């Protein structure tokens, strides 16, 4: 048996053991059937060309994450970013669910679960191993006040698998600001799946903050479906660790949808981070704008694959994607690949990618004013991503991000 076959078998066994009789049993069973049919991701598949999953042979797919010990001090590691805090520890909700005006927050049930899982191996594994999911659902034409801060805290001493599942549904004309925030430590694999459905004329401000410690692993799927005239503003901040992989899939299903998506990813030391973004303009007259900035230092490794797919009937599409990257050392590596697929001729589409080093002239200028080399590099790295951080709408998150960036650089 090859290592990939072994990992596949481990995944299937993990999911099989998760089967039990509750409301979600049928969904889990179907996902397990799907999982059995899919090959385990390997470098020979284009989508996994730069990311090997050998790290998972340590046993992350052999055990479900144990419940957090009662004395785990989660609270002290959570910054105060929002007005409404929800904490999920190793996949299980801790504490009570708050009930802000205009928003219902409930466990995900058989009736409410969105079956259109991202069609990826780990997406199906997520559903097949799911027992606790969360559903956030707004009431129509209501602006939910404040920021909902969802913390997914995953921590373990030995390799194991934690399933995090979030479904966000914005009813017509509603507005919501939500942070999904991943923290924790240890050799635990976070398998996160977030499904967002932005209803007609709704507005979502979304943050995806991934700041687990360097010894953790994270494979995430983010699916965003947009309906008529909806607007989604999504900011994604990611720090490299043993293994980080994010698949983001946006479908602009009805006309007038607007997407602003930005991200900053930083791979230092020996960390790894892989972003696969796919934005599909299915309906006409939608607008998408993506800006991603990457930094890799020491032996860090980052991957960015940004695909824009304009469908045949998506006339009048306006899509932009830029990915600029900075290398801090000779050993660091960033592989960036923008992909455009356009099936009609009435589109405006721009994409570009750059990879450069820190500018020696800028570094000298700062040092000639007394600023030491390490601080100067930090300033230049911060300057490089600053415009992306400044574009984030909420000040509390911006401040957190600035501090996060300082620590990461």
């Amino acid at each position, binding site marked *: 048996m090859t290592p990939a076959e072994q990992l596949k078998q481990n995944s299937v066994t993990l999911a099989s053991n998760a089967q039990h009789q509750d409301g979600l049993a049928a969904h889990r069973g179907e996902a397990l059937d799907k999982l059995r049919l899919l090959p385990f991701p390997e470098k020979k598949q284009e989508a996994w060309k730069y990311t090997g999953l050998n790290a998972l042979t340590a046993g992350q797919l052999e055990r479900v994450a144990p419940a957090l010990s009662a004395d785990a001090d989660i609270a002290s590691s959570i910054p105060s970013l929002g007005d409404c805090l929800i904490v999920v520890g190793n996949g299980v909700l801790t504490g009570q669910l708050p009930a802000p005006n205009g928003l219902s927050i409930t466990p995900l049930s058989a009736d409410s679960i969105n079956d259109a899982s991202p069609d990826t191996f780990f997406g199906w594994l997520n559903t097949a191993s799911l027992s606790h999911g969360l559903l956030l659902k707004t009431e129509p034409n209501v602006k939910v006040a404040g920021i909902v801060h969802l913390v997914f805290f995953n921590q373990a001493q030995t390799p194991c698998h934690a399933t995090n599942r979030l479904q966000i549904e914005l009813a017509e004309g509603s507005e919501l600001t939500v942070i999904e925030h991943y923290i924790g430590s240890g050799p635990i694999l976070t398998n996160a799946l977030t499904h967002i459905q932005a209803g007609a004329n709704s507005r979502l401000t979304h943050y995806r903050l991934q700041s687990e410690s360097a010894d953790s692993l994270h494979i995430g799927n983010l699916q965003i479906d947009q309906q008529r005239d909806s607007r989604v503003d999504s900011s994604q901040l990611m720090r490299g660790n043993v293994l980080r992989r994010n698949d983001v899939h946006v479908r602009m299903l009805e006309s007038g949808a607007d997407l602003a998506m930005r991200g900053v990813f930083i791979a230092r030391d020996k960390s790894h981070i892989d972003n696969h973004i796919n934005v599909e303009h299915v309906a006409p007259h939608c607008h998408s704008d993506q800006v991603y900035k990457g930094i890799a230092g020491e032996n860090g490794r980052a991957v960015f694959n940004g695909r824009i797919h304009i469908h045949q009937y998506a006339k009048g599409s306006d899509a932009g994607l830029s990915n600029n990257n900075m290398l801090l050392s000779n050993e660091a590596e960033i592989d960036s690949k923008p992909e455009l697929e356009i099936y009609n001729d009435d589109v405006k589409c721009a994409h570009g990618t750059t990879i450069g080093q820190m500018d020696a002239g800028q570094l000298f200028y*700062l040092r000639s*004013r007394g600023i030491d080399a390490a601080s100067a590099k930090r*300033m230049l790295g911060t300057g490089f991503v600053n415009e992306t951080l400044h574009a984030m709408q909420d000040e509390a998150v911006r401040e957190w991000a600035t501090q996060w960036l300082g620590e990461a650089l």
Partner: protein
Amino acid sequence: MLEVRDLHAAVEGKEILKGLTLTVKPGEVHAIMGPNGSGKSTLSNVLAGRDGYEITSGEVLFEGQPLADMETEERARAGIFLAFQYPVEIPGVSNMEFLKASLEAVRAAQGKEPLDAVTLLRRAREACQHVNLDQQFLKRGVNEGFSGGEKKRNEIMQMMLLEPKLALLDETDSGLDIDALQVVAKGVNALRSPERSIVLVTHYQRLLDYIVPDFVHVLADGRIIKSGGKELALELEQKGYGWLTGEEESA
């Protein structure tokens, strides 16, 4: 203050300075003039410690300390300031943030308390006013989108805040119109003091109408070939560099 003794320096293996000797005492203003390619900018960059500018023999002492042993930032903290010929644009880093980091580093090295935010801002605004730079420039990225004259004034503004012991002005006058030149000169003159030395590196005599030097040196082919008082600059203005270097020159 500054002792340069038989300095030889190379850039990418090519010797540019070939035995330069210069002594600058506290309170003195020296002008170093010379034709293009004579080594003027190399001297500035060697003194500031830019990578790739290698001292091959001779030595440079700043207040008795060999500069070769000091990193670029250590030189700045010891009190050396280089006003760049081509100030660098740094988008994303605000001028104010940069000034704060710079002042904190330099003041800490000199055993001074960091300035509180209010004082820092007040001083920065005063310095801006002194060089006719709108305060809006404090919020913008360092030199980002500044015109040539604005960049040079930004250099002088930083110099006024950092109060260096030794200020090196590398062709600060080049590309400036007369009005901007006067503003820059006013800023430099305001810094003249018995404790501070200033070295002006320039191609043109024009700047010396506004900043009157104590000494003028002519640099050619990596050496100082003639030194004199301020009247030497006027002589150069009339005769060009050719009568000293023995070459035809259209300056």
